[in-house]
C-alpha cells in the first residue's frame, strides 16, 4: 500500500536498478531509526511535562551523558560508517564497460556515445543489466543530472567532467531531469532514458554508426 503510493516515473522510492535500490534501502533503514528516536524524545518530553515524578530520579549527569552521548554517538558512528562503505561501493571505480558523455545546456541534454556513434535524439540510450558510466558536463551554467530510479544525481558544471555510474535491471523507459536551478527553462529540463537489452543496444549503436 505505502510502497504503491511512492511509485512514480521519477520516484527514488521506486528503484529500477541495484544502485538506486541500495539508496532506497538506506532511506528505509534511516526512516525506521528516525521514527524510533523521534518517538523516544517525544515520549520523554511528554512524561517530563505530565508526570515529572516518573523521571525525577534521573540525575543531571545521567541526562547529559545518557541522552547526549551514549544514545547518539554509537548510532551516528555506525550509520556514518555504513554510509561511507556504501558510498565506496557506488563510486565509479575502474572502468565500466561503457562510458557515455552527457552534456547539459540551457535547457536540454545531449548524449554522445563511444566512437561518435549513436542516435542524437536527446534520449539517453543504455544497455540494461550492466553498469554504465555517464560523464557529465555543461556548456553554460550549472545543471544537475538526475535519474532517480537508476541512481543518485551528479552536477553538470562548466569546466568540470563528473562521472556517475548508473544501472538498470530491465529494459524500459526511465526519466531523468535537471535538479540544479539553471534559469527560466529549468522546469522543462526532463530527458528520456531508454534501457535496451544488450543485443538491441549493440544493434542500435551499429545502426547509428552507418
Amino acid at each position, binding site marked *: 500500500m505505502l510502497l504503491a503510493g511512492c511509485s512514480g516515473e521519477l520516484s*527514488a522510492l521506486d528503484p529500477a536498478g541495484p544502485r538506486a535500490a541500495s539508496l532506497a534501502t538506506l532511506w528505509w533503514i534511516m526512516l525506521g531509526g528516525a521514527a524510533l528516536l523521534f518517538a523516544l524524545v517525544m515520549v520523554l518530553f511528554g512524561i517530563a511535562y505530565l508526570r515529572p515524578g516518573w523521571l525525577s530520579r534521573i540525575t543531571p549527569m545521567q541526562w547529559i551523558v545518557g541522552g547526549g552521548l551514549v544514545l547518539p554517538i554509537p548510532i551516528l558512528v555506525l550509520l556514518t560508517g555504513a554510509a561511507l562503505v556504501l558510498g565506496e561501493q557506488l563510486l565509479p571505480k575502474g572502468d565500466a564497460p561503457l562510458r557515455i558523455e552527457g552534456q547539459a545546456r540551457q535547457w536540454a541534454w545531449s548524449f554522445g556515445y563511444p566512437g561518435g556513434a549513436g542516435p542524437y535524439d536527446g534520449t539517453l540510450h543504455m544497455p540494461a543489466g550492466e553498469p554504465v558510466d555517464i560523464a557529465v558536463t555543461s556548456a553554460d551554467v550549472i545543471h544537475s543530472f538526475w535519474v532517480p530510479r537508476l541512481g543518485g544525481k551528479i552536477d553538470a558544471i562548466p569546466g568540470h567532467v563528473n562521472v556517475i555510474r548508473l544501472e538498470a535491471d530491465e529494459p524500459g523507459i526511465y526519466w531523468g531531469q535537471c535538479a540544479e536551478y539553471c534559469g527560466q527553462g529549468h522546469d522543462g529540463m526532463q530527458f528520456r532514458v531508454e534501457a535496451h537489452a544488450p543485443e538491441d543496444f549493440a544493434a542500435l549503436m551499429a545502426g547509428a554508426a552507418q
Partner: protein
Amino acid sequence: MSSVNHTVLGKRFMVVALTFFAIGGFLSMLIRAQLATPNSAFIGPEIYNQIFTMHGTVMMFLFAIPMFEGFVIYMLPKMLGARDMAFPRLTAYGFWCYLFGGSILIIALLVGAAPDSGWFMYTPLSSRPYTPGINADVWLLGLTFVEISAVTAAIEIFISILKMRAPGMSLARMPLIGWYMLVTSGMMIVGFPPLILGAILLELERAFDLPFFDPTRGGDPLLWQHLFWLFGHPEVYIIFLPAAGALSTIIPVFAQRTILGYRSIIAAIVAMGFLSFGLWVHHMFTVGIPHLALAFFSAASALVAVPTAIQIFAWIGTLASGRPRWDIPMLYVAGFFCVFVIGGLTGVMLAMVPFNTQAHDSYFVVAHLHYVLVGGFVFPMLAGIYHWMPHISGRQSLYRLSVPAFWLIFIGFNLTFFLMHLTGLMGMPRRISTYPSNWGWDWLNLLSSIGGFILTMGFCLVLADLVLQWRFGRRYRRDPWKAQTLEWATATPPAPYNFAALPRVDRRADMLEPAKIGPVLAGARAISASCAMASRKRWASTCSPASRST
C-alpha cells in the same frame, strides 16, 4: 530618529525584521498558490524565479538574523545588568545599514528587477552573460549592506559580553544565553567575511569582467560555492544558537528550576560553534568532489547532532526534575521539540553522502530546511515573543487567541512541510515554477498549499493577539513569570538606562530574585543622579557606573 539607545534600536530592529517576515511570508503564499495545481499559469517562470529568490533572501538575511540581533540588542544589556551596549552609535549605524540594504531589495522587487538567480546565487548563472540585467547587482549590493550591519552587531555583542557585565558577574556566572550569544557573535565575525568577499569578487566579475568564476578563462564556478557555503552553513547555526539561548532561558522559568547541565551546555555550544564550520561541503555533495573530502564533511555533519542532543536532553531533564507549569510560551516550546527533532533527524539522513545524492536539491531538502529553521528559530521566537512581550509592553497577554493561533501554526506547518519529504523523494526538484501532472506530485502539492494557507492564518492570529495584548493587556508588577534573570529587575516597560543603580551579582545570574532586586535598584536612583541626566538625553552609556567602584 537619531536615537542610539539600545532599547529603542532593539525594538526597531525587531519591528523591521517582522515586517520583512511578513513580506517573505506573502511571497511564500504566492509560491504555494502557483504550485497548488499542475501546469499552473498563475505566475510565469520569470516572476516565479524572482519570488523564490526573494523569499529565501528575505527570510535568511532580512528576517532571521536581524530579528535575533534586535532581540539581543534589546535584551542583552538588561540580562547582563548593563545600561547599554558597548558601542551605542555602532548599533544605530548597523540598524540604518540594514534598513537601507533591505529597502534596496524590496524596491527592486516592486519594480520587477529583483534578483532571480536563487538565494545562493550560483555562478555562472548569476554572472553577466546569463543574468545581464541589474537583478544580481541588486542582490550583491543590498546584501552587502545587510552583512555589514550583521558584522557590526556581532562585534558589538562580542565586546559587550566580555566588557559590560554587571559587577560580580564573572563569565562563569553569566546566564547561559550570554554564552550562546558570545559563541554566535564569534561565529558571525568569522562566517560573514567569506560571503562579503564572495560578493565583492562576483561584483568585480560582473562589473569589470575579472573572471574569478569563469571556467573558460581560468576561474572556477565552484569557488563561489565554497565561499557561499563557508558562510551559509554556519549561518544556520548562527540562527539556531540564539533561539536555543532563548529556550535555555524560558524552559527553566516554566520548569521552576535552574537549567540542568550548565557546564556541559557551555561545552556543547562551543563544540557546535566550531563543528558548524566543518559542514559546508554537505551542500555540495553532488558537485563531484572526491569521496574522502565528502567523508570529512559527512562525519562532521553527523557529529554536530551530539551537542544538539546534549541540549535537547538537558532541556527535557530540566523539565523532568522541576515542577513544570503550563503557559503559552511552553506551548511553542513543545512545538519546537516536535518540529526541530524531525528536522534534526532528516539532517542526519542528508549528511549521509549516498542518500544525499538522491535527496539533494529535491523537495526533501525544502522540507528539512523548513523543519530546522521554523522549528529551530520561528517556534522559539514565538515562545520568546509571548515570554518577553510583557517586558516590552508592560502588559500581559489575554490568551483568548494564543491557543488557537498555536494550533493553526502547528498543524498548518506540518501539513505543508511534512508531505514535502515525500514529494522530494518522489522526484520533485526544487525551484521549478510548474510541473506536469504525470509524475504523481499533484495531491501532495495541493495539500502543502492548503497547509501553507492554514499556517498563514495562524500567523495573522498571532499578530492580532499581540495587538490586543498591546492595547488591552493586563498591567502587572515586576517579574510576572517569576523568572530569575536580571532583565526582569528593570521597570517594565524599561527606562532608557535600564537600572538606576547597577546590580551587584553574588551568585550565578540565572538564580536571582528580580522582584526583590528591582525595587532596590530603582530606589537607588537618587544616588546616581548622573543617570537621570543621561536618560533625558536618551544616551545611557554616558551614565557613570556609580556602584561599580565598590
